[in-house]
């Protein structure tokens, strides 16, 4: 019996402990530099990069961007063309960013640049995997676009129950599709009562300035 017992070894460790520790390091570094940070999560094609392009026009060099993609530098190039510095992380297959990848990317950003107020991180397009990984951001943003359907809020509760901000993008397409905006917002609030919601169109610019002003109100 005693031998049986000895063969069991207690561990009791959170599997993402290492990530969480690294995230805390990122958070501290950014906060010491007076930089507010956001983590933008959605499925592929919901409009993350288009939103960041608009924001690059609004904030200019006050914003820096980290782009997470499985492959290619394309999104970083789009954001750079739109007017702000961007670093690409190519995850080479991984379906999410982790805090270590962000820490490395931070080394290629001039965090001491005068006016730098905002770091925006575009996560890899995926509604499940990124939701458990703290990157060290101040604000986690979940984005859903109108063509995806309003039912996705309840289908991806591990994301939408944790986000600080819920964005509904491509609102310009609402007249042509059956996405029920009120229902999506209500279902998100039902499990995440403190969430802040914006409906917008990165394409037409509708609602975008309100969102940018809201972000600005969080700067240090």
């Amino acid at each position, binding site marked *: 019996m005693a031998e049986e017992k000895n063969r*069991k*070894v*207690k561990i009791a460790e*959170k599997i993402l402990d290492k990530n969480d520790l690294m995230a805390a390091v990122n958070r501290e570094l950014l906060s010491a530099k007076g930089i507010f940070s956001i983590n933008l999560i959605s499925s592929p094609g919901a409009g993350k990069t288009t939103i960041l392009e608009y924001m690059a026009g609004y904030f200019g060099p006050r914003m820096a961007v980290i782009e997470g993609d499985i492959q290619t530098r394309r999104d970083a190039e789009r954001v750079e063309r739109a007017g702000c510095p961007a670093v690409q992380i190519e995850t080479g297959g991984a379906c*999410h960013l982790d805090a270590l990848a962000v820490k490395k990317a931070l080394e290629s950003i001039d965090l001491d640049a005068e006016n730098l107020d905002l770091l925006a991180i575009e996560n890899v397009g995926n509604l499940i995997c990124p939701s458990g990984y703290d990157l060290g951001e101040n604000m986690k943003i979940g984005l859903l676009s109108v063509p995806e359907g309003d039912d996705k809020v309840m289908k991806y*509760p591990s994301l939408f129950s*944790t986000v600080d901000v819920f964005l509904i993008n491509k609102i310009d397409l609402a007249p042509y599709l059956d996405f029920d905006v009120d229902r999506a917002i209500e279902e998100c609030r*039902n*499990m995440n009562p403190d969430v802040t919601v914006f409906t917008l169109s990165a394409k037409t610019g509708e609602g975008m300035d309100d969102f940018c002003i809201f972000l600005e109100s969080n700067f240090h």
Partner: protein
Amino acid sequence: MHEMTLAQDMIRIIERTLGGKVRLERVNVTIGPLAGISGESLRFCFTEIARLEDFGEPELTINYTKARLLCLDCREEYSSDDLFHCCPRCGSIRKRVLSGREFTVDSVELEEGEEPDG
């Protein structure tokens, strides 16, 4: 999916705790319903990685917990597997999530004759 990465993280945690590679009979983990992890997929990945990395052929035993929820209308605390359920006391769907995202390695059981290195 990220279960492969998580299985690798698990192996590193186990290796560090045991001080080296040890043949395992069983690994006990806890997964919350909001952790965003597929238990079956994790089982597949973990078994494969354990075998490849010389940790024997451990069985992965998963303790699926429930989420703790707080009803925003009557303040009742209750447990549920998902967020679709309404408050058992007043029927309201409005809730705050108190827990449900846990993902831990709880313990391992070694094969007979094996001993931790550390």
